[in-house]
């Protein structure tokens, strides 16, 4: 019965997360549509087009299992590859202005998948197909605001929350599909190299030596590289656990964006498709509301409102489509052109990944700041042994840096230890952090808590002492200091505590 009840509770929680929590703001989704179309036109499509396949003999065509073996061979003809490319570009231009958004989105998805399929048939696998499927997922909804469709009497419906949760689920599965092979191929084995090997492969073999690649591979970080191997697997695996909560998913996304920035800088690999996918889960509602009040937006909107639908559609097709095609063709012509050592084809993707990485890093810093503020708001009391000069010295130093917390010697306040369920022996063997909410905290965690309650940079040190791994080392360090506090600066014979009593703690 209890198990059934638990199952029902978990199911109810999941259904709440899936069917209610992912409410989508129409204007936020519109902003995503416009951003998606712009990035796809100017960055993704030019870098994932299949024009390069025209360089190779048809004998090299080996369609992968799935859709492509069903396609006629004429699909690989130069004119049809070119036509598909132009069709995707034109469709994206229409998606951007939101004209017949549903049909345009479906057309873009179909043509783009076929175009990528041509490249896949030459076994060049870019894993961008999921980005091409985004218009398919959002076709019926993302034209509900800031679009030409919104001018009509029957604008598109609002997006149901479950669809957003479904998109998050797909993203988590995608990331899991990257994590599992890593796990199985020995990324966590200390005798193998993974990040290290990719970095060398990129630098030595592929010639990706731009930006910070040279600096990164020369850093003396043997242990750091093994940690990066672990970090990459953990980060990718985290998605599937974070997907049940928007707050957690956004935290993981911020970490992933920062990770992609580091990869772009150190290995010159720009995961621009990932950044575009992550952007779907950014709360764009607030940003779009602010944008809607800006003079530039109001001016552009007034300008477009004065134009007929036909004029806006023709204008978008006449400007955006040629721009995208020009970028795609120029990437073939300018293949050897470099900027800061970065090949032409990587300029705009790296720019997008950098922008995403900066946003991710800012979000992480903001979350860290909030966590610190939250921790610092919790008031408490540091109880110390007044008979020990070393402890008294630390207490005096801490008292001058703490705002909300108080520092008390337990001998001067009879009954204080007992009030928190502690004994005099406890007081002599350790410092304690007590408050109204938690059980007394002793040992190295007292020091961490007191540091967190301080001003300046000390809270960072306090948080670091609580990180698993560091906390074990700090526990050992605390015990050593506690047992030998008479030998510490300021320590006297009165500080001496028998080892047995320390061990009792």
């Amino acid at each position, binding site marked *: 019965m209890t198990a059934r009840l638990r199952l029902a509770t978990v199911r109810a929680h999941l*259904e709440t997360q*899936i069917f209610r929590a992912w409410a989508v703001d129409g204007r936020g989704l519109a902003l995503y549509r416009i951003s998606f179309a712009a990035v796809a036109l100017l960055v993704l499509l030019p870098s994932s087009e299949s024009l*390069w396949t025209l*360089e*190779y*003999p*048809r*004998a*090299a*065509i080996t*369609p*992968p*299992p*799935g859709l*492509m073996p069903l396609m006629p061979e004429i699909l690989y003809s130069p004119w049809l590859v070119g036509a598909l490319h132009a069709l995707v570009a034109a469709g994206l231009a229409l998606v951007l202005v939101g004209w017949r958004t549903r049909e345009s989105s479906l057309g873009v998805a179909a043509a783009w998948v076929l175009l*990528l*399929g041509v*490249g896949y*048939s*030459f*076994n*060049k*696998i870019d*894993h961008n*197909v999921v980005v091409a*499927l985004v218009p398919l997922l959002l076709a019926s909804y993302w034209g509900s605001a800031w679009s030409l469709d919104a001018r009509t009497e029957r604008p598109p419906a609002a997006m149901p929350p479950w669809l957003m949760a*479904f998109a998050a*689920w*797909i993203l988590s*599965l*995608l*990331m899991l*599909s*990257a*994590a599992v*092979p*890593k796990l199985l*191929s020995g*990324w966590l*084995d200390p*005798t*193998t*190299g*993974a990040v*290290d*090997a*990719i970095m*060398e492969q990129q*630098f*030595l*073999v*592929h*010639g990706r030596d731009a930006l910070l690649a040279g600096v990164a*591979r020369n850093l003396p970080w043997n242990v750091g590289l093994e940690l990066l191997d672990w970090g990459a697997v953990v980060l*990718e695996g985290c998605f599937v656990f974070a997907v049940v909560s928007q707050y957690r998913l956004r935290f993981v996304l911020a970490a992933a964006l920062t990770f992609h920035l580091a990869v772009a800088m150190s290995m010159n690999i720009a995961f621009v498709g990932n950044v575009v996918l992550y952007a779907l889960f950014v709360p764009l509602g607030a940003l779009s509301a602010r944008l809607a009040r800006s003079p530039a937006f109001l001016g552009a909107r007034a300008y477009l409102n004065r134009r007929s639908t036909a004029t806006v559609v023709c204008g978008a097709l006449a400007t955006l489509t040629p721009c995208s095609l020009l970028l795609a063709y120029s*990437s*073939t012509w300018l*293949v*050897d052109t470099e900027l800061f050592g970065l090949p032409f*084809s990587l300029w705009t993707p790296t720019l997008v990944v950098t922008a995403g990485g900066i946003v991710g890093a800012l979000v992480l810093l903001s979350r860290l700041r909030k966590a610190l503020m939250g921790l610092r708001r919790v008031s408490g009391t540091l109880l110390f042994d007044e008979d020990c000069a070393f402890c008294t010295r630390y207490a005096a130093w801490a008292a001058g840096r703490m705002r909300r917390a108080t520092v008390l010697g337990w001998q001067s306040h009879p009954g204080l230890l007992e009030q928190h369920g502690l004994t005099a022996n406890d007081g002599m063997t350790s410092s304690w952090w007590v408050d109204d909410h938690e059980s007394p905290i002793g040992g190295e965690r007292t020091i961490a808590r007191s540091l967190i309650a301080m001003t300046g940079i000390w809270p960072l040190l306090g948080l670091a002492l609580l990180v698993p791994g560091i906390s074990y080392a700090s526990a050992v360090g605390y015990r050593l200091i506690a047992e030998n506090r008479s030998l510490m600066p300021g320590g006297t014979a009165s500080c001496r505590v028998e080892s047995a009593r320390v061990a009792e703690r």
Partner: protein
Amino acid sequence: MALFILTAGAVLVQDLLRRNVVEPFPALLMPSFAARPSEGETYTVTVATLEATDGSNVALRAPATMLARDAGVIPTSVLRLIAFEELDSTGRAGTLSPRSAIVRRLAGQHVGRTRDDAAAVVDHPEVTRWLRARTTETFGGKRIRAAQLVWHKLMVDRNTERVVADDIIKTVPLFPR
């Protein structure tokens, strides 16, 4: 909820296909990379060179990646034609850039893995014509009498980026055959 479970099942099947056969298309999969044994201060790669003889019996040598010309990338199926690279254990299809630092440094070598059953592909008349045309272009339009691909296993010093060991592991004549 059923849709969520079905999608997870589909991704699982696609991943199994990728690892055991070949990646299907379209697939909801992300790229992954296999770990490799740590080598310390060196890094081992297998590279291929295009080596030819012109009408005057002068030996010519260039990176096999030069066959890619302006495309900038060499997809795996083309590597199978010219360098016989196989998919790695995760099913990832590699692409190579002619900008390779090693390629530039060694003036004529690129990465690839050997493939024994490649002869049939090279014998394809369209591929032979394509290889002849590309080889001629690669060597500035010179009349090429014979060409072959030679694989080297190179050990590169990570610090100096110099090749410290070079073993020829395979030679495949392209034409005449």
